């Protein structure tokens, strides 16, 4: 299996060096023969083994001996790691292409985002998230309701957008029984996430937060289509145009970034609580991360209502 790794390594090195091209050719021949269930004839695999163990022997005989004895197993482990890392990278690229960010449906390990490398060994766990209060949240509904649902979301995030119809359905089905709140957690990996949050706050200053919320999440557009600031600006104008707000005041609010500090404080609060992805819902303090169906909500809601 060393030939497979050698093929990848020397294949890449061979782009820059003629010496390594020959090794790449031999590795390819070896891999092809092994794939067709024949023995590697060039002895490339044995030569690589001798090269590696020879170099190790000059540094540390014990390690060289260990590597020599378990060479096939070590090669298999490296090959497996190679395929796993290729798989993870492909998964991340897929998420990037489909969802506009490489974290996928849930904020988890992403090969292209160093902030998430910790997730490889410590996958995110909803149970580690601490409950967040409604302080500072935009709210709607009866504050004395038995059901208190707080959403921590990002206006640029496709998953927060995907959860919007579920939120609407919940508000309809449990009409009058839910006290709903929203806090900002603009994700840096999502384009214009802070700008959208600021726009929402600027609309909120004119009492139009929930109208902005509805308009933003129902507009048929993918946030990844905004490639420049002018496009974003145009998009915001289209969102707010039917909200019956004072546009010059709104635009002045946007230009001044007066809400930025407030949004960053909510962002920090979410991070400190251990929120690792959007949307994250707190249903009477119980955590639900990126739900995909109404049933996920109802399971928790029904339990809370029975209490």
């Amino acid at each position: 299996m060393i030939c497979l790794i050698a093929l990848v390594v020397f294949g890449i090195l061979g782009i820059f060096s003629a010496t390594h091209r020959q090794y790449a050719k031999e590795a390819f021949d070896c891999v092809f023969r092994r794939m067709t269930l024949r023995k590697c004839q060039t002895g490339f695999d044995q030569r690589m083994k001798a090269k590696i163990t020879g170099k190790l022997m000059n540094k540390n005989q014990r390690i060289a001996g260990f590597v020599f004895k378990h060479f096939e197993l070590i090669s298999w482990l490296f090959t497996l790691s190679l395929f796993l890392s290729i798989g993870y990278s492909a998964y991340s690229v897929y998420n990037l292409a489909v969802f506009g960010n490489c974290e996928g449906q849930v904020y988890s390990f992403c090969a292209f985002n160093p902030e998430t490398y910790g997730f490889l060994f410590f996958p995110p766990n909803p149970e580690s998230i601490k409950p967040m209060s409604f302080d500072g949240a935009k709210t709607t509904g009866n504050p004395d309701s038995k059901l208190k649902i707080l959403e921590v979301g990002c206006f640029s995030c496709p998953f927060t957008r995907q959860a919007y119809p579920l939120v609407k359905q919940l508000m309809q089905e449990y009409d009058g029984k839910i006290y709903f709140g929203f806090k900002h957690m603009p994700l840096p990996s999502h384009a214009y996430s802070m700008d959208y949050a600021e726009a929402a706050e600027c609309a909120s200053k004119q009492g139009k937060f929930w109208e902005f919320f509805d308009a933003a999440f129902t507009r048929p557009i993918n946030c990844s289509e905004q490639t420049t600031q002018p496009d974003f600006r145009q998009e915001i104008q289209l969102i707010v145009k039917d909200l019956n707000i004072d546009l010059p005041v709104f635009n002045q609010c946007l230009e001044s970034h007066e809400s930025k500090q407030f949004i960053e404080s909510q962002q920090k609060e979410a991070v400190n609580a251990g929120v690792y992805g959007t949307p994250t819902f707190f249903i009477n303090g119980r955590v639900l991360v990126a739900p995909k169906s109404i049933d996920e909500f109802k399971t928790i809601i029904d339990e809370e209502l029975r209490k």
Partner: protein
Amino acid sequence: MNASQLRKDFPVLEKKFNGKPVVYLDNAATSLKPLPVIQAIQKYYSEESANVHRASHKMSLAATQKWLEAHEKTAKLINARKEEIIFTRNATESINLLMYSLKEKGFFSKGDEVLLTKMEHHSNLVPWQQLQKLGVKLNFVELTPDFRLDLNDLEKKLSDKTKLVSFTHVANTLGTINPVQEIVKTIKKKSDALIVLDAAQSVPHMKIDSKKLGVDFLAFSFHKMLGPTGLGVLFGRKDLLNDLPPFLFGGDMIQSVALDKSTWNELPWKFEAGTPHISAGYGAIEAINYLKKVGFDSIGATERKLVELTLNGLQALDKVKVYGTDDLKQHAGMVLFEVKGIDCHDIALSLDELNNIAVRSGFMCAEPTISSLNRDGLVRASYYFYNTREEIEAFIETLEKIIKTFS
């Protein structure tokens, strides 16, 4: 002349890999080449570079003269006549030439027997295997427990059906030196079979007298005796060669050519069709000169010392098993061994990787012999006069390190 003086004549020995010199212990595969040989070949291409036996201009005459000289010197080397020396590509082609010519002559018929041994190189086995298609039976002389030819078995297997006996003078694996004269005597007592000797591992290392040995044919290669690759020799008794049809047809091997028939040239040209490896002939002359300068007695003595040193060193190592006769007088300059629990190729590759020590591993073109001892192959270190005690010590030390690490 001591080895350190002679080593200066070999440019390859100056080479270093990763700052370490080469330790060349694969002389049975091919020997290194001294400067006079290299320079002679270069001289041909830079100063003469003409074809032989063709034109009458001075360059062609000079090349032809050298080509004749190569034949004469080779004949003198093994006490033969120049008509009895045929130049081929190598010993393998020499034996093939003989096999094909004998076959063409109708020498073999169904039911005939050919006697070989169980210590042959493929070049003295595979060609004779082709005769089985004619219904010829192959028999093999067994080996004794100490890896010599069982001469009793040889006598037993000779019969009135034996048309040809072919055996090696020095086994390229076990290093066994066979008593040729004794064997020839035994054969001639019981049979009038043709006797062929594979002398590829003996001519480079000892004085050979084709007349004294009493064989009918012998084959060897120049590249194992300091000469260039691509030039081999078939010695054959003049009367026998005259009786054999040519192997290859075309230019040079003819005397006259008409549209529908041709007549053959005299010996040895009858068997040397086409443009030969002329530059190799220049190199061959210098190779023979150099060997004479070193002296076969000196070569033999040096190699015996090196083998003794190796055997003593290997004896002290764990898990090493040596194959070959204990009698140093019948043991040529090579040592064949295995390390229990470590693949032979891993040993060879690690020796090379650690200290640029070149040895051979695997079946060494003698698969039946080696696989009867170890089906995965063995390791062979083979020496020549330019190898030193220090090189053998480095070899043993490195092998010890490898065994300690990999066991």
